[in-house]
């Protein structure tokens, strides 16, 4: 009980100190561009009242969901196959290791060239950004499966696709989930960057637009705060999945 209370109170105390330092820092420096916490709150309220906030949040989330899910549906099977079949891995791994270190941001010009200023561009970027961590995690997960599980299953006469479904996938799941969490974090980072350049809506666009159209830094920071809070929410969601009995055995926490 006490530990639970602490886990709420301590972060709240830090947040309070942070906001206080921020407030007084703006006051003492006499900045008329950088907003106080209160101005950010009223700015957020203004955005919410206009209906822009909700619209932009939905736009960003939609892009992340689409690109990320596409990456999940491509990356997990791809990674599983690469982990299982030696030839597959030998053929594809070098290509993936070359593409992986290229920042998704570097793809923005290419995405605009291919997809123009449309939803497709950021979705493509999010897809790319999430694909590699998911694929690599799934591949490593299969390679790390303890041989004894495979041997036990084969002993019971399980083979082929059934072996994949009943043993390979569940045995790899904890490590895959870790990859999924990592990828979601990256996807959320990338959507903001992509929206600053490739589209006319979303939280990233909100930030860049608020700065360009009249230096509304209260709205810039409001957008940043929204991004942070939603990121936290996404992480909590994935972490909740990590407490399931089916995967908890393979996670260190």
């Amino acid at each position, binding site marked *: 009980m006490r530990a639970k209370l602490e886990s709420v109170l301590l972060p709240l105390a830090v947040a309070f100190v942070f906001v206080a330092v921020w407030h007084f820092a703006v006051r003492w420096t006499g900045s008329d561009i950088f907003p106080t916490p209160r101005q950010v709150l009223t700015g957020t309220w203004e955005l919410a009242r206009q209906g822009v906030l909700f619209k932009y949040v939905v736009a960003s989330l939609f892009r992340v969901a689409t690109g990320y899910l596409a990456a999940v549906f491509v990356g997990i099977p791809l990674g599983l196959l690469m982990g299982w079949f030696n030839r597959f891995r030998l053929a594809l791994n070098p290509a993936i290791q070359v593409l992986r270190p290229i920042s998704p941001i570097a793809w923005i010009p290419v995405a605009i060239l291919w997809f123009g200023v449309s939803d497709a561009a950021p979705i493509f970027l999010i897809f790319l950004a999430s694909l590699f961590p998911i694929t690599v995690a799934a591949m490593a997960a299969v390679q790390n499966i303890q041989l*004894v599980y495979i041997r036990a299953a084969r002993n019971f006469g399980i083979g082929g696709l059934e072996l994949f479904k009943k043993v390979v996938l*569940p045995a790899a799941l904890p490590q895959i989930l870790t990859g999924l969490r990592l990828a979601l974090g990256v996807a959320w980072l990338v959507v903001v960057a992509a929206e600053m350049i490739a589209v006319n809506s979303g939280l990233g666009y909100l930030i860049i637009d608020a700065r360009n159209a009249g230096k509304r830094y209260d709205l810039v920071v409001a957008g940043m705060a929204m991004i942070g809070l939603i990121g936290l929410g996404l992480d909590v969601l994935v972490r909740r999945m990590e407490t399931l009995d089916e995967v908890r055995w393979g996670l260190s926490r």
Partner: protein
Amino acid sequence: MTDRRAARAKIVVRDLWMTFKSPDKRKPSVHVLEDINLEILDGEFVCIVGPSGCGKSTLLNIAGGFLQATAGEVRIEDKVVTEPDPRHIFIFQENGVFPWLNVEDNVGFGVKRPNPAERAKLVEHYVEMVGLTGFGNTFPRELSGGMRQRVEIARALAAEPDVLFMDEPFGALDYLTRLRLRAEVMQIWQRERKTVMFVTHDVDEAVQLADRVVVMGKRPSRIRDIVTVDVSRPRDLDDPECRRLRDHIFGVMGLDHSGLATEVQGVDAAEEDEGGKVVNINDRR
């Protein structure tokens, strides 16, 4: 013991040789088994003992269909073993219980009966037999090492095999748990009468469990002796006959029972033979 004489050979190991080629061509191949011949009767409990690295685990892995012998063959019911078979279940030292399934689903994993009611009954029966009633919904992570090994035994039995291969199944457990599981395995075997091939480096364990103890020597190993343990069960290890057999087995292995070498340099304390455990990850399909 007359019924045992009447029984026919269930497992026949004939002229078996095993050599591991090193993937590194500069290193020499390792000769592990030399000319192994052995017959195990239907319903017999046979223990294989030998010093670490002698290849007893390799022999078991060949019989289980997980490794191919260099020469010779293992036949079970006149069929040459070439791959794992659901009628011959292997119990692993490192515990092969699936951590993503609860106890019930683990035990039910190898059940072949399609009827769900029969299936549930069988699972319940074996969960009870290994003393895990009430733990059906528990996940392996929440169980002790001994309990996990019980789950693996129940899972093997629920597949209704006629042969059990046990590869140092209690090797990773603490002493007291090991003693208890030994007694439980004996009780289960007396009820089920499966043919059991049981590898251990613990001579006491072998004498307590086995109808016959196969004693192997240092690598490359041959069978040095096959000792019949004609003592009624449950056995007391302080029984004079048990003690005599144990000392005899130690003698055959080249040790006195305090572990000191009685011939040459004694056994090298090389790491446990990795026979089955180093199968290349890509060979597992």
